[in-house]
């Protein structure tokens, strides 16, 4: 059930907030033991709140589309009085006495938080195989990863344990689990959503976005999340107040399809699913423009260098006790500490140059269509994958179409665009100009409608 459907049923008296909440809690009870999507389940507080929100609706108080909707927060987003582990032993007993801005906004909008979802340790990785809180499993094949770092959020939404879950994206962490779990995930423009009360990883790259069952649900959720916050100086003041109409016209939209990089070393099923989506865009009246993008390898390298250094800048104080960290995260933190400051500064100089180069691309088109990930979900524990006869590192291959977008600060939406022969979801990425979430959501909604027709 989507947020739109649930809201409609609520307002027509076909269901109640407590019924919606009980449905999600029942799904958690049924599947969380196996899939491990949640670190903390907040059943009691969710039920109390649902009853109160039902009472509000009966007395004529309607807080809007999120009223009575069960949601979940990634467990690095502070919710007052609830443990916030960031998937780390370092924070396993941390209980914040305040709400993150994003949590407070959902609270004000009437959403019901059913729990805190699991993640890759410290949001620094793509598998969500967490050494402290256990492996999170893909609901489409429990032997495969759900992606990360927002793996628990992806699983929670894909299985109906929550109708929306927050995720964070520093190098693909919303879009990867969206792609592997077969749901919608929106990486927002850097500065669109306040990071106050959210554990940082890469301070100049971190973004927060919604993970939902539909594009319209993502838009509805972003309307709640977005906006200026004086406690996060990166936030912008541009308003966001868009929900794609039904039907959603894209006639005349200039849709760019890269001829370079984004279709190299891609599984054939992924390539053909994305090409089918490109064909649908054309049939919907969009103008498809084949183009060459600036050097993506270089952009990824810069984004990776910046993250490598920014992560230990935040987490170094906790490295006193190295045993608290998983092996993969510790290796990344140590690598970052080995990068000289001059190289970090030069990476930021290159970043500025690349931002200017990519602005030229978006003069010719309104958005870009690419695969989100080059393959469907890898197996748990898989370190390497073969693509076009070449062996690739799973982490680097999985992030290669996304990582650079964080350095550019641009919004990017991942939506399901088909399945493999084994029934695994395939993700399509739609990238737009800064603060033009409206365009990627518009294209995404039109494609979603066409793909489901």
């Amino acid at each position, binding site marked *: 059930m989507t947020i739109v459907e649930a809201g409609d049923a609520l307002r027509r008296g076909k269901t109640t907030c407590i019924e919606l909440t009980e449905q999600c809690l029942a799904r958690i009870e049924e599947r969380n033991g196996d899939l491990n999507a949640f670190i903390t389940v907040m059943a009691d507080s969710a039920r109390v709140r649902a009853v109160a929100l039902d009472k509000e609706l009966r007395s004529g108080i309607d807080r809007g589309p999120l009223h009575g909707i069960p949601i979940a927060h990634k467990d690095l987003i502070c919710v007052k009085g609830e443990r916030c582990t960031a998937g780390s032993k370092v924070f396993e007993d941390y209980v914040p006495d305040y709400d993150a801005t994003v949590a407070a906004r959902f609270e004000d909008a009437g959403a019901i938080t059913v729990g805190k979802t699991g993640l890759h340790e410290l949001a620094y990785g793509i598998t969500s195989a967490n050494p402290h809180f256990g492996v999170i499993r893909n609901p489409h094949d429990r032997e495969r990863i759900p992606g990360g770092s927002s793996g628990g959020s992806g699983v929670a939404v894909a299985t109906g344990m929550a109708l929306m879950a927050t995720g964070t994206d520093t190098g693909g962490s919303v879009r990867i689990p969206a792609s592997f779990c077969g749901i919608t995930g929106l990486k927002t423009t850097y500065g669109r959503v306040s990071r106050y009360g959210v554990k940082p990883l890469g301070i*100049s790259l971190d973004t927060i976005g919604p993970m939902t069952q539909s594009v319209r649900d993502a838009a509805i959720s972003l309307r709640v999340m977005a906006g200026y916050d004086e406690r996060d100086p990166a936030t912008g003041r541009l308003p966001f107040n868009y929900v794609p109409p039904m039907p959603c016209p894209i006639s005349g939209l200039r849709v760019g399809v890269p001829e370079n990089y984004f279709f190299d070393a891609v599984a054939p099923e992924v390539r053909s699913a994305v090409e089918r989506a490109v064909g649908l865009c054309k049939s919907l009246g969009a103008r498809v423009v084949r183009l060459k993008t600036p050097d993506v390898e*270089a952009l990824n*390298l*810069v984004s*990776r*260098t910046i993250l*490598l250094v920014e992560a230990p800048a935040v987490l*170094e*104080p906790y*490295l*006193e006790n*190295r045993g608290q960290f998983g092996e993969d995260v*510790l*290796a990344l933190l*140590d*690598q970052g*500490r*080995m*990068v*000289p400051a001059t*190289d970090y*500064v*030069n*990476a*930021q*100089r*290159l*970043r*500025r*140059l690349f*931002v200017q180069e990519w602005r030229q691309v978006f003069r010719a088109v309104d958005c870009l269509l690419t695969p989100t990930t080059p393959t469907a979900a890898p197996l748990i524990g898989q370190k390497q994958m073969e693509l076009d006869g070449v062996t690739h590192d799973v982490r680097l291959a999985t992030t290669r179409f996304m990582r650079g977008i964080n350095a550019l600060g641009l919004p990017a939406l991942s939506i399901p665009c088909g399945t493999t022969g084994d029934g695994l979801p395939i993700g399509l990425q739609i990238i737009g100009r800064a603060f033009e979430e409206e365009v990627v959501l518009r294209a995404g909604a039109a494609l979603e409608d066409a793909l489901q027709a």
Partner: protein
Amino acid sequence: MTPSPIPEDQRARLQPQVEDLLSKLRSLTAALPEDSDSALVFQAAEECE
């Protein structure tokens, strides 16, 4: 706070990956115009808003 040092065996294990990254990055940096700004340029006007 003084950061805890990276153990030598870990440093040796990671060194090739870091060197590979830095060599690629430095080849890009070499082509940068001398007067290019950083993405982290401080903008006083914005700070004073």
